[in-house]
């Protein structure tokens, strides 16, 4: 090991050398190799966790892709006219359509499937409901497959692995229905994946983040800048755990063009992140209300 600094020389002791082979001279790379080999080997207790986590991650990635293929709906003329009639305004509702439960020897699942009723655009409604059902079915199939594989590998050993999926109505007013469908995974530690559906009841359409802004406007830059500022503030003043200017983790740079969001009752944009997306797990799923003055010129809202 060659060193830049030599304590003996600095002490003006020149008739001796430090062999660099004392028990203080631990080869860090060697330790890393040994530890990695051990923790990645089959008998490591963390193996189960890593394995099931990986699988869920790939499944969720597939689910996210599914969400992305939904195209925005153009509103039929007739439906648009009808929506102005007061009586139909509030009949849009969300109900639990199906529920799958299982609890056995450390494995647990509780998957609820939402269903939207009362949308004037039945085509959009059917498509969303089909997506909810397909996602739930895929989640159940993936879960059952994981349980089967883990049982084959670990027999009757108790493995803590679970999945929960449910939905929360974030906003339901005359104009907006914001539905948050989440998947909560437990495999050693936990992770949560949210998918938001924002439906404009008046226009009868599923809103994308882009739809809230004037056409072609750059909303990513001002929204990201505001969020970064908030993260820094929270880290410095309120025990925030955001990964920003942090040598240990990748720092948050900017939101995705289709970042998760919902619209609150005040018609404000709320940007949402999944667990571990921009902060330590203990921070949960962070949300940021974007003040209108930050995006004033370009924000249309609904």
């Amino acid at each position, binding site marked *: 090991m060659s*060193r*830049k*600094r*030599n*304590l*003996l020389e*600095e*002490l*003006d*002791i020149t008739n*001796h*050398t*430090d*062999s*660099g*082979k*004392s*028990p*203080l*001279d*631990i*080869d*860090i790379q*060697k*330790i*890393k190799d*040994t*530890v*990695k080999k*051990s*923790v*990645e080997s089959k008998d*490591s*207790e*963390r193996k189960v*966790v*890593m394995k099931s*986590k990986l699988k869920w991650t790939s499944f969720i990635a597939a689910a996210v892709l599914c969400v992305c293929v939904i195209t925005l709906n153009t509103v039929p003329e007739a439906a648009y006219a009808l929506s102005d009639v007061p009586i139909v305004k509030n009949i849009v509702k969300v109900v639990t359509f199906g529920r799958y439960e299982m609890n056995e020897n450390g494995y647990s699942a509780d998957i609820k499937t939402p269903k939207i009723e009362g949308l004037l655009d039945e085509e959009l409604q059917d498509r969303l409901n089909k997506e909810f059902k397909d996602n739930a079915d895929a989640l159940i199939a993936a879960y059952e497959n994981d349980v089967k594989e883990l049982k084959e590998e670990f027999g009757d050993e108790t493995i803590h692995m679970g999945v929960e999926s449910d939905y929360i109505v974030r906003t339901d007013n005359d104009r907006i229905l914001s539905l948050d469908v989440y998947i909560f995974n437990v495999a*050693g*530690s936990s992770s949560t994946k949210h998918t938001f559906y924002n439906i404009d009841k008046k226009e009868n359409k599923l809103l994308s983040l882009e739809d809230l802004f004037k056409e072609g406007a750059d909303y990513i830059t001002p929204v990201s800048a505001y969020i970064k500022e908030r993260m820094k503030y929270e*880290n410095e003043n309120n*025990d*925030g*755990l955001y990964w920003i200017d*942090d*040598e*240990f*983790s990748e720092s948050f740079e900017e939101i995705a063009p289709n970042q998760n969001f919902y619209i609150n009752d005040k018609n404000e944009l709320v940007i949402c992140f999944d667990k*571990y997306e921009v902060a*330590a*797990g*203990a921070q949960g799923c962070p949300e940021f209300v974007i003040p209108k003055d930050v995006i004033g010129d370009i924000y249309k809202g609904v």
Partner: protein
Amino acid sequence: MADEEKLLIRLKDGQINAIEKAIEIYTPYIATVLYNMVGNILPREDIEEIVSDVFISLWKNAEYIDLKKGTLRSYLAATARNFALKRLNRKRDYTPLEDVNLPDEKSSAQFDSYGTFLWDAVMKLGEPDNEIFVRYYKYDEKLKDISRTMGLNLSTVKTKLSRGKLKLKKILSDKEALL
């Protein structure tokens, strides 16, 4: 929030690069603790194995570590001491007693160079000065990194290094005079 907490959260999450980071940050500290305890009894190879065991144990037990009960550093030091004791006991089990060098019987000539002299003297500086010297001279760490990792002011680190060197000169010249 402290770097230590962030690191532990990532360990709990099972991120493999977190354990690598922990190894980079804490190896010099654990090496210092072990050198003080068994540096003159166990060969470097044994000490390297203990260091590896400490981090494997950290990975497996991260879930149960509660920083309200103590720092990650103190947890690692305690784990290192336990592993070292186990290793010593095992060695004593099949080594004739007279072949075992107990800490108070240590001879400075046991290692192959004057380095032992020097680093035994560094250990006499006590904590946290000895760790600063180990990090700076053995692991070539930057002063800025040492101050961050150890939670000390940069100026404190600099002062401790320069005062430590003066003390070392004195300790070593006294020792030379004895020989």
